[in-house]
């Protein structure tokens, strides 16, 4: 069993630290049990189970630091791994940016572990696959999907008195449904900490419906369109913004967030309705309440009223700049509105509904310009109703331009551990057509 209780973890880590002869020593102990099933062509293709446990030991003499890892926790092994980290530290060049371990911290109690998810069985996974395959076969559609679930714990301790422990569970599911004539494709993604919130049949049927609806798409001219981005599509571009919240690269002049030898904190960069924050205790998207270096993770606002409120400062850069460190977040939550997808469609005179964006790559880090394509369900809307499926487009767009062109915010949905609203955006830039289904 790779999941230790708080007391078991504490004992192992205390033992390891008792062997330390360095100026300071910090240990991280992690373990997880995970299972997956993969299917394609309406048949199960592979499935697997993994069990992992690792103790990482970091020792330092002054600013010389060494790290060693082990997966056996008897006294002899613990002694060996601590000694090895010390040898490595002595051999390492000095890292002037090494900040040393933190002292004791106070953490909120995390809410991201759900026992029922930890108890998922191989039979359950097979049933999930079957709840895609059976309806697919009956609708002349081919299913390909993947379910991955995990339960784990993380703990850390150091010679300065810090101790942290957290258990977590997670489940991720995606399925692609393709019509057997090859002209339609639909997809859904679902992820939860709590498996009881997961309905594989509902998810599979949604993907089937999209596949059937998207058959025989028409080509329309690329150009600027009003789009309704489903939360997964919106996240694809918001990720680009999320990756640019580092204060250091901003202050160094090599980020979208750079400005006049400093950064854009306090500057309005997007529509005033945009609010983005992170919160490890949000009940829909809970996460750990501390990160791998022992910093507490708290509710943090990144953008409010369209204005940059915070950037992430690691401990070194915070010290350089004389500010408090702001750790990178474990989730993003973007404020939404009341509108349902149906209502967003109803209020659209002419536009495109986008299920997801795919193969998103940075084109210009200066402007956060990204390219990619629509995929698995793209539909033309006219006078408040979906008229017909359209061929996929390539886009070239920046999340900054997108959030400045915001029309309406819809309801929030959990995607990949984040809460993202449906968004209606005007003048979204599609630059070419794709024949891909």
């Amino acid at each position, binding site marked *: 069993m790779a999941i230790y209780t708080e007391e078991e973890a504490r004992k192992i880590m205390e033992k390891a630290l008792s062997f330390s002869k360095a100026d300071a020593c910090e240990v991280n102990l992690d373990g997880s049990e995970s299972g*997956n099933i993969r299917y*394609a*062509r*309406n*048949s199960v293709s*592979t*499935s697997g*189970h*993994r069990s992992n446990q690792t103790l990482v030991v970091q020792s330092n003499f002054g600013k010389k630091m060494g790290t060693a*890892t082990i*997966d056996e926790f008897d006294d002899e092994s613990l002694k060996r791994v601590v000694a*090895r980290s010390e040898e490595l530290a002595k051999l390492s060049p000095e890292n002037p940016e090494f900040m040393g371990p933190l002292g004791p911290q106070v953490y909120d109690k995390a809410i991201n572990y759900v026992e029922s998810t930890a108890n998922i069985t*191989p039979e359950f996974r*097979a049933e999930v696959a079957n709840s895609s*395959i059976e309806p697919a076969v009956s609708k002349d559609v081919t299913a*390909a*999907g*993947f379910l991955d679930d995990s339960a784990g714990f993380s703990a850390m301790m150091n010679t300065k008195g810090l101790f942290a422990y957290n258990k977590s569970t997670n489940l991720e599911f*995606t399925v692609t449904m*393709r019509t057997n004539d090859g002209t339609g494709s639909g*997809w859904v993604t679902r992820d939860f900490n709590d498996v009881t919130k997961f309905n594989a049949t509902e998810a599979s049927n949604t993907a089937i419906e999209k596949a059937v609806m998207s058959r025989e798409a028409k080509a329309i001219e690329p150009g600027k369109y009003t789009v309704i981005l489903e939360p997964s599509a919106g996240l694809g571009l918001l*990720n680009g913004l*999320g*990756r640019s919240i580092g204060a250091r690269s901003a202050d*160094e*002049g*090599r980020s*979208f967030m750079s*400005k006049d*030898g400093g950064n854009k904190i306090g500057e309005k960069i997007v529509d005033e309705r945009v609010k983005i924050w992170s919160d490890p205790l949000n009940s829909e998207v809970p996460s750990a309440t501390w990160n791998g270096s022992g910093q507490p993770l708290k509710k943090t606002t990144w953008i409010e009223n369209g204005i940059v409120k915070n950037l992430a400062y690691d401990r070194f850069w915070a010290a350089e700049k004389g500010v408090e460190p702001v750790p990178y*977040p474990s*989730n*993003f939550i973007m404020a939404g509105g009341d509108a349902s997808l149906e209502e967003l469609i109803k209020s659209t005179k002419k536009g495109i509904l986008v299920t997801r964006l*795919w*193969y*998103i*790559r*940075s*084109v*210009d*880090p*200066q*402007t956060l*310009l990204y*390219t*990619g*394509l629509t*995929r698995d369900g793209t539909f033309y809307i006219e006078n408040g109703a979906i008229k017909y499926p359209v061929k*996929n487009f*390539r886009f*070239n767009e*920046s999340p900054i*331009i997108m959030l400045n062109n915001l029309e309406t915010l819809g309801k929030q949905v959990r995607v*990949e*551990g984040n809460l993202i609203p449906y968004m209606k955006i005007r003048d979204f830039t599609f*630059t*070419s057509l*794709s*024949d*891909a289904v």
Partner: protein
Amino acid sequence: MKRRDFVQMSGLGAGALLIPSTMMGNNIAVEALLAPGMDVLVKKRMADVALNTATSMGATYADARIGRYLNQYVFTREDKVQNVVNTESFGIGIRVIVNGTWGFASTNNVSEDGIKKATIQAVNIAKANSKFQKEPVVLAPVSGQGEVSWKTPIQKDFKDVPVSEKVDLLLTANAAALDNGANFVNSALFMVNEQKYFASTDGSYIDQDVHRIWPTFGVTAVDQAAGKFKTRQAMSAPMGMGYEYMDGLDSEKLVGAAGLKLYRNSYDMIEDATIAAKQAKEMLSAKSVDPGKYDLVLEPNHLGLTIHESVGHPTELDRVLGYEANYAGTSFATIDKWKSKNFKYGSDIVNIVADKTQKGSLGAVGFDDEGVPCKQWDIIRNGVLVNYQAIRDQVKMIDQNESHGCCYAQSWNDVQFQRMPNISLEAGTDPYSVSQMIKDVEKGIYIAGRGSYSIDQQRYNFQFGGTVFYEIKNGEIVGMLNDVAYQSNTQEFWNACAKICDKDDYRLFGSFFDGKGQPSQVSAVSHGSSTTRFNGINVINTGRTV
């Protein structure tokens, strides 16, 4: 944000470099890299435990892979060493066929007891999944190879080179860039040694020692006043070579258009960093491209990625058949097109070969990860699609009975599956140099180095950037360009292939961390070509004001 599968090691240029966490193993002391590992006789005995256990439980086929994966990564920025990582991962993966169904399990407990337990788990998984199996596995025959071995032909093992020498080289390159006007430099050196032992119930016991290396950097110039920054990436290629790749031999240097220095089988990192700094500064004030149709002259270290995305992935048979539909997608290069024997993938001069044997390439091994001897075969001949990339359980689906030998797993704890071999464009047969090619272009753009890349899930529509762009007017390079990306359709693009330089310009591009599958696995693959011209390709301007 989803970063679970990646470890953020260092910022390379503007974008952070994320290394798949599966590429990491346990941290070890640098000296431990030199430890010999398990004796081959013991490996054989341990592999036989798996094969015998599987057979006794009703498996009709079994293979065992005992792997020791040693990695050393060095990261620096400006005058600082950020991290030196030495890792080792050791264990065994066992794959079985029971009731016509695959089962797989792995363990890092390489003892008789641990191996038996994992084998039983693999058999049980196969039995459980056979309930839902609709297409029983049929393996193409391969003869037992007996006890054989293969080794990447290296001259200098990275494990024998002191870390201090590697750190010195990176810091010297960084200093060269800073001295020549760069504001920031991130550099990294990736070195990989796969020591893998394969045994199967077909009677093969194969011991292989595989080496790979990748030096790379991002050199950034900042214009604070204008609020602009530009990054020039390295012109190196990841290679299936030892540390001798870092020698920087003059004999392996080539001169590209616009005086670019390019590298074949030996890389001069200090020289490249020096030039990169000058070019990054030049990029800050280069002209923004006028969108429109251009003849593109694509340098091999750029074209390799275009080959990878637009020919490599679409001709993977598992994609074509739908096994990757839920992740990377399917392919436009469907079976009916291949069966027609006249599907014009490209113009008559386009000849694309798949290969697992080319010296210095990332894909070169003696045998693949299911014991099939490696070879070379045609994918496109005279512009026509003639074959795919397929492994033992796939070739029957294209009426063939010999595996192509391109099965791979990134580690002992991942199941092996079809992975891209080296996919390369043959050089032109008539003597033709890059300077001659430039002379023949009226309105064009010369593109060198890797850049942004994106392609749809069936591999029709793509958009590529590059590292550096130069405008060609009436047969001459007239200056550097910014904001260039080309958009095309795979079949149109390859049919617009007008001219290919000769073998003197031929060299390898590489992808060190190519991802595929769920759970995702990485593999390393090379793509060879000579500088090639494509006529009338659509170029867009990617400049924006925000």
